[in-house]
């Protein structure tokens, strides 16, 4: 049932055994396996604590890309009421890699926009694995501008490997679309808060995450390039992704030190996918807190706050 990452293999064994025992007990009511199973559970928890207490940057990348991690649509469904999707860029198409629309967060109207990766083969193809085309960014521009016009806070949920590298996307101005989306974020006279829920992949992420406040889930990543891409360029060997992940400093923890990420949202033990409800609840409280920090600020002050945040970046240096 559960999808295990390569470094979770020993865990898979223990949890599998416990599951087996319990299955046997269900077949045969005379068997008493609970003590043994509970011991295995305990062992599994200890292992989870150990594994997740010291995830390497590369393992974090794997967790951030975990197929069972809650996605944008899960958050939208759980956190908002009256979600009303708004579609299309009014030029060419509706990009299903980007979802967005009007919704209420605790009854207050907001505009929510995010990347959706999909969760099975069919939906992944439909959502283009969360890799947006120009239409997706242009839809976002439209929604951000609409939100600005009506004074609605904008919430963006970022989860993308990057913008889609395709022929059509390039022909229709992928770079221009990303640039305009970043620009729209910077110009919005409303609170704009962003949560990186999984992968913050390069320009495709910046286009949505240029926000007053940027939060990252504990095991999410945000990077200028994928570790694999970086490894193949700088190490000339794409198998050096562990080294690249290390060097890129793409974890929420490092990005918090650099001032790129304002807030780290804790994940349940074993990662967001092990307790989706708890994760979604944590994201909710982070959103509430970030919006509260911006409450009552005038449009000009919000724009200034956002600009200054980016102009000031780069003064901090990480320890070796």
């Amino acid at each position, binding site marked *: 049932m559960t999808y295990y990452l390569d470094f979770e293999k020993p865990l898979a064994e223990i949890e599998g055994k416990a599951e087996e025992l319990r299955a046997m007990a269900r077949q045969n009511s005379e068997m008493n396996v609970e003590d043994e199973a509970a011991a295995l559970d305990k062992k599994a928890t200890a292992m989870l604590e150990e594994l997740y207490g010291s995830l390497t940057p590369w393992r974090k990348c794997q967790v951030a890309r975990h197929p069972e991690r809650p996605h944008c649509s899960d958050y939208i469904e759980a956190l908002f009421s009256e979600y009303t999707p708004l579609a299309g860029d009014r030029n060419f198409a509706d990009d299903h890699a980007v979802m967005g629309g009007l919704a209420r967060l605790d009854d207050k109207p907001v505009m929510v926009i995010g990347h959706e990766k999909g969760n099975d083969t069919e939906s992944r193809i439909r959502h283009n694995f969360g890799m947006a085309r120009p239409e997706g960014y242009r839809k976002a521009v439209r929604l951000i501008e609409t939100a600005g016009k009506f004074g609605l806070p904008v919430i963006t949920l970022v989860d993308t490997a990057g913008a889609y590298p395709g022929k059509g996307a390039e*022909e229709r101005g992928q770079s221009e679309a990303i640039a305009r989306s970043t620009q729209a974020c910077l110009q919005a006279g409303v609170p704009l808060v962003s949560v990186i829920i999984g992968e913050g992949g390069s320009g495709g992420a*910046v286009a949505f995450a240029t926000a007053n406040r940027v939060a990252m889930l504990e095991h999410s990543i945000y*990077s200028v390039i994928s570790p694999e891409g970086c490894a193949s360029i700088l190490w000339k060997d794409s198998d050096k992704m562990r080294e690249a992940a290390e060097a890129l400093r793409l974890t929420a923890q490092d990005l918090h030190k650099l001032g790129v990420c304002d807030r780290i949202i804790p994940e349940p033990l074993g990662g967001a996918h092990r307790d989706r409800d708890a994760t979604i609840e944590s994201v909710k409280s982070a959103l509430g807190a970030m919006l509260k920090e911006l409450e009552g600020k005038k449009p000009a002050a919000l724009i200034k706050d956002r600009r200054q945040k980016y102009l000031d970046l*780069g*003064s901090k240096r*990480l320890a070796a």
Partner: protein
Amino acid sequence: MNWITNYVRPRINSIFSRRETPENLWSKCDECGTMLFHRELSANLNVCTSCGHHMAIRPRDRFTALFDGGIFTEVKVPEPTDDPLRFRDQKKYPERLRAAQKSTGEKEAMLVAEGEMGRMPIVAAAQDFSFMGGSMGMYVGNAIIAAAERAVELKRPLVLFSAAGGARMQEGILSLMQMPRTTVAVQMLKEAGQPYIVVLTHPTTGGVTASYAMLGDIQIAEPGALICFAGPRVIQQTLGEKLPEGFQRAEYLLDHGMLDRVTPRTQLRDELIRITRMLMGQPPAVAGDLPAPAEPPVEEPKSEEQPAPEKAEDGTASEEADQTK
């Protein structure tokens, strides 16, 4: 005759070209293979005299050709934090930086300057592809912000020549953050009503294209320049899509509505003078002799309201083009 073009510029040019006079006086066009005499090639702004292929031109050489009399003043760029990630791949980042500084003689991948172009005061910024692929790190971001601030302060247009393989990976996320940072710089210009003209040169790719290089009021590209977000190799590798002839080249982008113009380098200066003058509400540049040269613009006149000296319209634009034939 024109005093500056005929006397000062050749002298300045010779000072600069002495610095980098190669041992071999000939270089080969990468496109058509013609052997070109170095001096002739640089007089033609590194455009092949045989096939018109545009080879790379260093920012300093570009500015020497762009500004009246080859005279410009560098705009100071605030120093970024040194190696913020303590990045190390097979080499340490500071070592790579030092090697680039040594091989280029430049401090970083962007040069910012102010001066006059056909008597039109401008601020210009040019990216240096020979410096770590022109990659956009904090210095480049700071340079663009400094250029925009200076243009706003002096109420001048900003002309930016882009050239980059993309982000400076060794600065990780801080390199990526130059996308919003430079977009803030563009916003400053927009709000001040100052023209922002982008000249995309070969190659301009990745995050650079997805930020300041695509946000100009006017978007010009040099012929044949590769301009893209994802490079053709990436597209072919990841998707196996077959790409048409000329894909992502300047002319292809022009056809697809992504650019205003594609202009040969030898005509660029004239064109930039024309466009900036119109956008700034100035009368047309008049061909004719230049008056005695003004002092190099070390100190700027504070009164911005001062009308441009109308009689002083120069002919450097057209003569420049003639000279480079």
